[in-house]
């Protein structure tokens, strides 16, 4: 399906075809532009995930900020936010070292969208969480450890 769509786009008649598909309710507008990075999401280790994202050796940067609680009462819902002060930031990704698959999500930022996203992630256990940022063709990173603990009884 994705491959087909890309081909459609390449032929130049894509816009019209996409419009028709969207109108028919077959695809949602805009979605055809995205292309789920299976290799990155299915990678297990941090290293393999970074590789799949094309981010070899990201530099630690103070201009990337990862916000999140020091301790989460429940790993099922951990609020995290990433901001980047690096000009020309085009991508933000959130990685969790000790999860079965490190990559939680990635966000592509078109011109005009601020490098500032917040979401909520699942954590299987206490782990380092990484914010990965792409600006130009370089990658930058920030880290924070988030502890996951048990809340109520029955655990």
């Amino acid at each position: 399906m994705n491959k087909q769509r890309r081909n459609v786009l390449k032929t130049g008649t894509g816009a019209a075809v996409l419009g028709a598909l969207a109108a028919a309710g077959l695809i949602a507008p805009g979605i055809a532009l995205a292309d789920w990075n299976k290799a990155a999401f299915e990678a297990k280790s941090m290293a393999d995930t970074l590789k799949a994202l094309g981010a070899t050796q990201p530099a630690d940067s103070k201009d990337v900020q990862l916000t999140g609680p020091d301790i989460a009462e429940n790993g099922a819902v951990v609020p995290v936010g990433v901001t980047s002060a690096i000009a020309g930031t085009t991508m933000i990704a959130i990685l969790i070292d000790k999860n079965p698959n490190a990559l939680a999500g990635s966000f592509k930022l078109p011109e005009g969208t601020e490098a500032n996203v917040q979401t909520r992630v699942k954590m299987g256990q206490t782990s380092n969480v990484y914010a990965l940022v792409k600006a130009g063709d370089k990658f930058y990173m920030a880290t924070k450890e988030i502890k996951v603990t048990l809340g109520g009884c029955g655990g």
Partner: protein
Amino acid sequence: MVNPQKSIRLALLAGLAVVPLAQAGDELLDGINAYREALADGNPSELVAAEGEELWKMPRGPKNASLEQCDLGLGPGVIKGASAQLPRFFKDTGKVQDLETRLMTCMETLQGIDPQAVVKAGWLKGEKEKMAALVAYVVTASNGHKIRIDMRPPEMKKMYEMGKLAFYYRTGPMDFSCATCHGDQGKRIRMQELPDLRTQAGAASGWGSWPAYRVSNGQFWTMQHRLNDCFRQQRTAEPIYGSDATIALSVYLAATANGGKVVTPGIKR
């Protein structure tokens, strides 16, 4: 032969003299409070409430009617502030009802839906899932209101007495009652702080923040669901959905919380 009384004193002395109060726990609690604040914005209960609004307005049941004429105590169709004044005594049914049993009455009288369809459904399945959505919608309309339970009717006074007895009723293999965990100040289970439900402040923070979305399982829980799981953890037999004991407990909690602020739907661990 050991003198057990002497041993207790020894053990107590050792405990009190040497073990410092757990200061480390306070920093952790601060951290957890920060975590909870981060969750308050964007409460997924909104998604459930949106479904509930649709259900409220949708003609359903054998009578193909909506719930828009349902009287939750403030007149037909009035939901603003209604759940802040529940449970209450209803003359038309001659009963003290909580939000859920009152909604069941409306579903029966307006829509022709058998209350047993709600009672017998599994949690968050079938008619109970619909009930949860309706509850989310209704309680959202009381967010920020004051808890105002009308305790004048004698039926309410009696339910309060019954609820208080139920609150302290120790039973089952673990000898627990509600008061085992909620009958003292400043206690917690694991990292979970426990409101002291005997006091106005404790009851207001507990009663006033349910129903709620629970992030641990991603579910919206009504008060009946909350109470049911309290009894499960107490290891008692299972309370019947909407039974008098559950309503009596709700009256006891709500009346104790009177004057407190409603923050519903809540968001919980």
